[in-house]
């Protein structure tokens, strides 16, 4: 698995870096001024791995840090360490299909942190699971509350009815008595008129009696129905009420657990302030009690969470009219299935265990000692001076310390001699500086025994180290600081690479090679190149010599959003946006380009073409390559128009053959005039002139049609009505960087001659004929 991208938020001066890609060839350089935030990027990537941060990492607004990394799994990675049955459906498929594994570490205010699985689609799946659980609780609680209030209404109605029935029964009794009385009066009376009235009254009372009696019956029926209804709902209501009780208790236990955790942390953090035995003992007892309480509350929380989870599902099932025993069985199963699934944090933790280890190398101070006792090596005594360097040395030499227990002195000496040769050959591969004219230094170690001058150690074995050249045999400490640093760096990285041969690692290195000569800094880059197989190296640098100018895609430019303010946030430009970074940020790249000529070790006696600057150098070299020209032309970049005369004089002095090619712009016109007036071979009208001027082209960018310029050089679709070179100047883009990007695309074969339209092709052909072909034919005639 290899690191592909990172995104850092709220970490020292960083607010949000956005996503930044790590170079696919495993070497990534962070460039930028002091205080720009380069080291913060390395620290954040290291904190992502080990989880540790200190309070000074936090930003003033106290927003908590968050670091996300995306990894590319190996094609052979089947994620066997993950129980796929416990992974929420779709998560593994998403990781496999996208071939990206996202992990985010988020820190809490108490500086503890959690790793979780991240990435848009993966997070969506986990969010859905969470929201399903929340909705289950929310909806079921609503339904329980509705049920409780429904039951209450029924009960109230029944009680009301019962009261009414009592009073109605009294009324019925009165009406019955009244009826009897009226009937008696009817028997007694003989008056026909009165009889008629009494009959009507009796009829009315009868009707009323009947009505009251019917109402009572209706009420009783309703009460009976309500009783049945309540008995039906009673069970669910009872479970529902239990469930609400559990939820309430869960909230209470949760707050108690939080309180217990808080007081535990508080006691823990105050422990170091305690003085005296008594105070310390009391503190420890307090801490023990707090821990106990926390563990107890955690267990309570675990139990109640499980009970509530099952109960809420049971109630839901009962509300869905599922029979009790079935509902119980289903609830348990559903809960087990949900509980079994990894949370986003659990899944993140599992994947995290399998990502490449991030190692932070801040200094290489463990320098090789003059000597070390074998006893210290056997006892792994890491406090002894130079122990780590010796350990690294032995790892590189492929030597187990046990080897020195060998008693046969001849075998020991022979083996040591062979190893000295092997290590020296390997070291000399990287260290290109000579001591004196031709001698390269050699690293040697020897097995010796203490003599009488060390009576307390007499006869005990020790290893002695030497750094030799032809004439001298000096102890490491007698060598220069630069040599010792490089040796220490070489031992550390080579040992690291050897130990982790088959493992992916991310190596974070802050400012390597500060005390080294420019050439030795390039040697550092060589060591990186050698170990990069499975090790991804991310380093910060200010040095132009620690940047491979042909691999600018390895760069990330780090700077403050507002250059003038140290309070301003850190922003990062990836390789494709380098030209947007400030010139100060880019100074290692630009100064490298400025040193281009001094690096050229290939000037030859003929076929030299002097061009005005590094931008022209990149374009013309690339165009020469586009024509598959096998004859090696040496383009020599002057450092701007002013440097042309110096270069011309230099090459004339050396007796080299050359011509000068210039674009037709205002800056060059003075030099053109100067060359024409002072040197006889530079008459522009002479067909054999050494001076060639691109008549209609103000700059190398104008060789391209506007369309091709937009498509292949600046990669935007904006309309450009003026000249291409004018556009670059107006928009303050970095000409050398853009040119270097183009040269890179040509050298990788991403851009070929056939990619261009007829206008560009004609311009290039014309230039090639008039400049390159001309110098080739001129040389042939010489």
């Amino acid at each position: 698995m290899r690191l592909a991208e990172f995104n850092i938020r709220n970490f020292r001066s960083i607010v949000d870096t956005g996503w930044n890609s790590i170079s696919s060839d495993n070497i990534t350089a962070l460039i930028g001024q002091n205080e720009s935030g380069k080291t913060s990027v390395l620290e954040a990537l290291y904190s992502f791995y080990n989880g540790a941060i200190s309070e000074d990492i936090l930003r003033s607004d106290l927003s908590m840090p968050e670091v996300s990394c995306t990894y590319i799994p190996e094609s052979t990675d089947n994620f066997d360490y993950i129980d796929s049955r416990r992974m929420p459906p779709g998560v593994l498929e998403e990781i496999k299909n996208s071939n990206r594994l996202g992990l985010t570490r988020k820190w809490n205010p108490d500086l503890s942190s959690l790793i979780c699985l991240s990435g848009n689609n993966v997070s969506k799946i986990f969010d859905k699971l969470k929201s399903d659980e929340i909705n289950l609780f929310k909806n079921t609680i609503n339904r329980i509350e509705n049920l409780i209030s429904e039951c209450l209404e029924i009960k109230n109605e029944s009680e009301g009815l019962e009261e009414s029935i009592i009073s109605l029964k009294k009324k019925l009794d009165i009406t019955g008595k009244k009826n009897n009385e009226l009937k008696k009066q009817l028997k007694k009376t003989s008056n026909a008129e009165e009889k008629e009235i009494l009959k009507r009254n009796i009829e009315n009372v009868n009707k009323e009696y009947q009505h009251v009696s019917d109402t009572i019956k209706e009420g009783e029926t309703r009460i009976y129905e309500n009783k049945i209804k309540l008995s039906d709902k009673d069970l669910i209501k009872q479970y529902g009420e239990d469930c609400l009780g559990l939820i309430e208790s869960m909230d209470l236990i949760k707050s108690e657990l939080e309180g217990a955790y808080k007081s535990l942390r508080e006691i823990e953090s105050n422990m170091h302030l305690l003085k005296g035995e008594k105070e310390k003992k009391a503190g420890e007892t307090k801490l023990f009690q707090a821990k106990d309480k926390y563990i107890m509350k955690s267990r309570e929380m675990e139990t109640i969470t499980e009970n509530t989870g099952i109960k809420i599902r049971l109630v839901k099932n009962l509300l869905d009219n599922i029979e009790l025993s079935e509902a119980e069985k289903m609830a348990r199963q559903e809960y087990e299935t949900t509980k079994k699934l990894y949370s986003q944090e659990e899944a993140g933790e599992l994947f995290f265990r399998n990502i490449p280890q991030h190692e932070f190398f801040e200094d290489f101070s463990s320098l090789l000692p003059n000597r070390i006792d074998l006893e210290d090596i056997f006892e792994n005594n890491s406090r002894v001076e130079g122990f780590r360097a010796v350990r690294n040395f032995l790892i590189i030499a492929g030597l187990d310390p046990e080897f020195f227990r060998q008693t046969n002195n001849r075998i020991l000496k022979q083996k040591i001699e062979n190893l000295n040769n092997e290590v020296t050959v390997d070291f000399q591969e990287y260290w290109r500086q000579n001591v004196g004219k031709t001698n390269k230094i050699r690293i040697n170690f020897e097995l010796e025994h203490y003599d009488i001058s060390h009576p307390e150690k007499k006869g005990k074995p020790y290893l002695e180290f030497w750094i030799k050249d032809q004439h001298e045999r000096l102890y490491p400490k007698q060598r220069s600081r630069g040599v010792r640093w490089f040796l220490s760096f070489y031992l550390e990285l080579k040992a690291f690479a050897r130990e982790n041969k088959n493992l992916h690692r991310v190596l974070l290195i802050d400012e390597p090679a500060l005390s080294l000569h420019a050439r030795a800094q390039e040697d550092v880059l060589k060591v990186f190149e050698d170990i990069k197989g499975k090790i991804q190296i991310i380093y910060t640098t200010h040095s132009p010599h620690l940047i491979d100018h042909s691999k600018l895609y390895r760069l990330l430019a780090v700077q403050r959003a507002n250059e003038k303010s140290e309070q301003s946030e850190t922003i990062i430009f990836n390789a494709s946006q380098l030209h947007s970074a400030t010139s100060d940020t880019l100074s290692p790249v630009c100064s490298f380009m400025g040193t281009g000529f001094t690096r050229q070790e290939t000037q030859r006696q003929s076929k030299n073409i002097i061009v005005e600057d590094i931008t022209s150098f990149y374009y013309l070299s690339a165009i020469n390559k586009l024509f598959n020209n096998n004859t090696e032309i040496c383009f020599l970049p002057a450092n701007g128009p002013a440097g042309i005369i110096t270069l011309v004089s230099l090459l004339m002095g050396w007796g080299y053959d050359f011509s000068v090619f210039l674009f037709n712009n205002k800056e060059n016109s003075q030099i053109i005039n100067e060359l024409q007036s002072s040197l006889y071979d530079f008459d522009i009208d002479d067909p054999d002139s050494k001076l060639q001027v691109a008549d209609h082209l103000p700059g190398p960018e104008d060789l391209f049609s506007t369309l091709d310029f937009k498509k292949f050089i600046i990669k935007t679709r904006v309309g450009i009505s003026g000249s291409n070179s004018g556009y670059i100047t107006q928009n303050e883009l970095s000409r050398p960087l853009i040119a270097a990007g183009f040269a890179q695309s040509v050298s990788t074969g991403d851009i070929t001659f056939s990619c261009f339209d007829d206008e560009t092709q004609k311009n290039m052909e014309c230039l090639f004929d008039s400049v390159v072909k001309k110098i080739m034919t001129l040389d042939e005639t010489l």
Partner: protein
Amino acid sequence: MLHPEDIKRINDSFRAAPEKVRNREITDSLRYAGLIQQAMLPSTQVIDKLLSEYFILFMPKSFVSGDFYWVAYKNKQRYIVAADCTGHGVPGALMSIMGISFLNEITSNGCPQMSNRILNKLREKIMESLNQTGEINESKDGIDLSMCIINKDKTSIQFSGANNPLYIIRNNKLLEIKADSMPVGINAVSEEPFSVTDIKIRKNDILYMFSDGFPDQFGGPDGKKFKYRPFKQLLLDIHKRKMNEQHTILRNTINNWMGNNEQIDDILIFGFKII
């Protein structure tokens, strides 16, 4: 070209006026704008110097037009353009004024000698002026056009087209030179270079350049489009007639076809004979 601030000022003053007055003012303004646009088109005297036999059927839908024609004489070559800007009326007219200005500018100094390069440059200018960069919410306006460059001895022409083709009638046969399928302006995905076609021409060849206004006009008994096949046939039928007669026939034909239907777009046909 009008500055956006001026357009805003004009719009604000329109909104402030009472409706009737405003309508009258709009009509007057448009009529006057039409005169300005007419003045920017090449005059007959200029065209007469370049072409001996030609006609231009120019029927704007409104007072101002999104179609325009343009000619120039540079490097002993004759440059002829018939163009159709996005939209019609005021927006089209603004684009057409921009197009005419840009063509004059491109050909005024260091005039490219190839028609496709002129269109490439014109596209850059339009994209730059309208801030077109390929973003979703920006203006997608552009120009469809055909451009011919007749060489100095009138033996060949270069043709480049942005959506609009060129018809050549020779020996009673109509030859269609296809255009590139893209406007002069921002494209949907990416901008590609315009192509150029070199065509040998002969004496008495008749060349027609046009906008889509004529073939796309609705009318006739069924209210349908006139369409390209009848348009080609019509040109074949009339190409032997004198230029002014062709002009009259085309105008009458489209007016009759339109009947009571509204003219849907500006109409432009530029025909000329190689003498």
